[in-house]
């Protein structure tokens, strides 16, 4: 039984692509045949984050328009078994993405893969709508910051009213909260929204808390999904989230500040 998962947020720059790359990699590492699809036509970036930018030949629009078949456009990851990437087009515009085209591609991918992770563009226009339209589950990526929480609320409204599941009156899209760039020290000082507050406001189950971490930039610099970075707190948090997603009971360990050594306690607020 294959599942379509959309990674969405409304707001840009909150970590959708980072999350898509890490999450898809994590699912593949657990043995699930996984494909991660970039829906950001015109502003493709998943290929860079996944480190396969030099191997892109065909893209999703080529497949929709019949210029290439799906097999030709899929890029197999070189580090992790069971993982493929379907890149977005960099030259066409979003109108080249059609509902029928996306439906046909997802139907074909469902036959061969366990999980199809759809990396949504920002906004609530065509690309974002098509990324979530066929979803069975949604990972809503949110920063603990007012504009991001508001936009997440808006996208939850779209999921509840304009997804295919909603239109056909089927079971609703299963929603998960992924709280990214969480700085537990700032939360303790009352400078940042608490995870409980965000969860209270959005009222959806918490899948993961990803701590603010320098390793996210380091990983993207090198084109490595952060989940593959050894010793990265963000990477471990994503691995935990994948475990929870497939049904394991894993406590959230990044809601409190990580213990610091004496030196950093002296020079950086451990109030």
């Amino acid at each position, binding site marked *: 039984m294959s599942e379509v998962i959309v990674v969405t947020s409304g707001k840009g720059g909150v970590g959708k692509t980072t999350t898509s790359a890490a999450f898809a990699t994590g699912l593949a590492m657990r043995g699930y045949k996984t494909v991660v699809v970039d829906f950001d036509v015109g502003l493709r970036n998943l290929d860079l984050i996944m480190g396969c930018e030099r191997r892109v030949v065909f893209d999703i629009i080529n497949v929709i328009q019949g210029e290439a078949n799906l097999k030709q456009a899929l890029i197999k990851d070189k580090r992790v078994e069971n993982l493929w990437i379907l890149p977005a087009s960099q030259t066409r515009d979003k109108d080249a993405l059609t509902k029928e085209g996306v439906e046909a591609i997802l139907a074909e991918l469902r036959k061969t893969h366990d999980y199809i992770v759809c990396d949504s563009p920002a906004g609530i226009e065509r690309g974002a709508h098509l990324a979530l339209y066929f979803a069975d589950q949604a990972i809503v990526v949110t920063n603990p*910051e*007012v504009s991001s*929480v*508001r936009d997440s*609320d*808006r996208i939850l*409204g779209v999921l509840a*009213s304009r997804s295919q599941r909603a239109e056909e009156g089927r079971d609703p899209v299963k929603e998960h909260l992924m709280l990214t760039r969480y700085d537990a020290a700032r*939360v303790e*000082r*009352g*400078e*940042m*929204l*608490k995870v409980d*507050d965000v969860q209270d*406001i959005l009222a959806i189950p918490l899948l993961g808390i990803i701590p603010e971490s320098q390793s996210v930039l380091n990983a993207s610099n090198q084109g490595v999904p952060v989940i593959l970075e050894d010793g990265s707190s963000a990477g471990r948090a994503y691995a935990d989230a994948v475990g929870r997603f497939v049904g394991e009971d894993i406590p959230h360990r990044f809601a409190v500040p990580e213990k610091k050594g004496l030196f950093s*306690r*002296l*020079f*950086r*607020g*451990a*109030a």
Partner: protein
Amino acid sequence: MSLLDLFRANKRAKPTAEAARDRLQIVLAHERISRDGDDFLPRLQKELMEVIARYVAVDQKKAVVKLDRGDDVSTLEIEIELPTPTAGERRTERVQQAASNG
């Protein structure tokens, strides 16, 4: 408290996370109600002006519709400026009034 905190000027700054939570709760409560409804204020303004224009001469540009969504009470404020009658109109009005008073 770290050593450096002692030297920070605004260490007593009020925590802001609570304000973020409270503001979000208010704005989202309102947005969820009208989530799929379109923005009705421009239509409300237009229809109101049409009704009022049937009775008094009004300048469409001199109408202000304000909505303030508060925690306990929300207010809809409509301010329509009525034009001051010109001297000529005032005279006619007086004449008519005199006539009707007999």
